[in-house]
């Protein structure tokens, strides 16, 4: 009985929170992946976000074994750095860390929801339902970190990513190097990011 009362109290308390909840969604363009690249000192960090349709060809929550296999295979492929980016040998870059996951952004949002309304089951269910909705647009997310012997030699970065995933059409890249910040659109045909053009 007591817990019941608490639940009602929580529900009432949670109501204004729900009303104030901000609703927004990032834009999501099929075929277009985004990449950020930073060079500072010897450190090179690359982050790649790609809609699921580019990688596995679908964006619904995987239910069949075939779909799950496809996702597992894609994640494995993205873990192998050589499948995604090829760095100039002269730069002597050594991979130090790599992380690949599916739907990273939505997971973060989920955590936030949890913080907002603790010990309240209803709200949690809601958040889950919301998550399921947004999961219709799944995104693959990969980060790669390198230590480079000669970062000045990082002039061109090849993107075998396009060969690996035939559905990927374009990467919108933003990069920051000693020459400053800039952006580039990379398509299948070039499949290469040219740095240090400033």
């Amino acid at each position, binding site marked *: 009985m007591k817990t019941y009362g608490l639940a009602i109290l929580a529900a009432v308390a949670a109501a204004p929170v729900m009303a104030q909840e901000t609703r927004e969604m990032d834009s999501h363009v099929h075929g277009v992946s985004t990449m950020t690249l*930073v060079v*500072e000192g010897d450190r090179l*960090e690359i982050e790649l976000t790609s809609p699921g349709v580019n990688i596995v060809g679908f964006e619904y929550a995987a239910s069949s074994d075939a779909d799950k296999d496809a996702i597992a295979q894609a994640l494995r492929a993205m873990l192998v750095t050589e499948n995604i980016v090829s760095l100039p040998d002269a730069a002597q870059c050594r991979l130090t860390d790599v992380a690949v996951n599916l739907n990273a952004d939505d997971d973060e949002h989920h955590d*936030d929801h949890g913080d907002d309304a603790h010990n309240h089951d209803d709200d949690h269910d809601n958040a889950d339902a919301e998550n399921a909705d947004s999961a219709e647009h799944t995104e693959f997310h990969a980060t790669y970190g390198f230590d480079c012997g000669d970062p000045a030699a990082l002039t061109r970065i090849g993107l075998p990513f396009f060969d690996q995933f035939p559905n990927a059409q374009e990467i919108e890249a933003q990069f*920051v190097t000693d020459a400053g910040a*800039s*952006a580039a659109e990379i398509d299948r045909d070039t499949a290469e990011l040219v740095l240090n053009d400033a």
Partner: protein
Amino acid sequence: MILRLASQSLMARALTVGMTILAIALSVGLFLGVEKVRTGARASFADTISGTDLIVGARSGSVQLLLYSVFRIGNATNNVTWESYQDIAARPQVDWIVPISLGDSHRQFRVMGTTPAFFDHYQYRGGRSLDIAEGHGLDDLYDAVIGADVAATLGYAVGDPIIVSHGLASFTDHTDQPFRVAGIIAKTGTPVDRTVIVTLQAIEAIHVDWQNGGNTGRSTPVDVIRQMDLTPTAITAALVGVESRLQIFGLQRWINEYPEEPLLAVLPGVALQELWQIVGIAETALIGVSALVVVTALIGMMAMIFSSLNERRREMAIWRAMGARPATILGLLVTEAVLMAALGGALGLILLYVSLFVGQPWIDAAFGIWLPIAPPTLREAWVLGIVMVAAAVVSLFPAIRAYRLSLADGMMVRI
């Protein structure tokens, strides 16, 4: 031999040849000028801000944010609340943050409220800092530091009073609270030259008696205002420097996903790149049009040579009789054309530099674009070379005709 003949022949027809050369000169000057303005404008924009990692403003377009915050072009869609500003400033990744508040003006110049830190962190042209040429920085609430163009245009010296107008192009002045010119910034070639800089608190102070955009009629004495809490409620934008470059994108994402207020953080270089993508279409069109003008001038030259053929038939025939081979006739005409193109190109280059010298200060004052006067580059040499080759190709048509005619005519010219 042919060269001397060709130049003599051109001299003999100085008027028509002169007009043709002038047409080529104008077109080449235009073509090179468009390129100069294009690269000059790009360099000018790119040089305006450096050392700033992120610009934060209300959520709109990244290009728009860059334009209003740095270039004072256009206006903000929304302001950023002071709470959000402080939230961002408290992020561990933030090395420094400088708020900017726009919206008031002095004559034709924008007034910008900021903190003294602006002078420490704002950098232009690859890391140069602002240099206060005369006077000092923002020490007092009613101190104003003005850009070089403001001082030059309005004839201000350190110590002069300044009345700030409410809004842009408005007739209501903040007469009750005059500012004093505390310092004049050395010429930078950036929009800072055309800006009156005051403190953020001063922007609040002059609006103390204003509510909902109108003057309430009351006039709070200055010494009362000095005692008031002048913490702003909102700012227009903020410039941010991060501790480490590796954190730029993380901080950008945090700001863009900031739940309490829709904010936008952009990397200045990336926003500029986006701007060039938009402007690039117009640029290509401009270059295309000016290239067509060059083509038109060359076709004009071809028409001129064609029409001269008839009057020169007897001349050609005499040359043939003197022992000139038909190939010589052809060579003569092509050489004439190339000479005209070379002269036209050279004259065009001179025209370009003269107009650069004349127009540079005016373009700087009117548009804030500083066109550097640099010696001709390899690219210009290429353009001149291509124009000469094109002239040779174009003149082949009348030359071949002359070649044929001179074969057929012999001495018997039937005119």
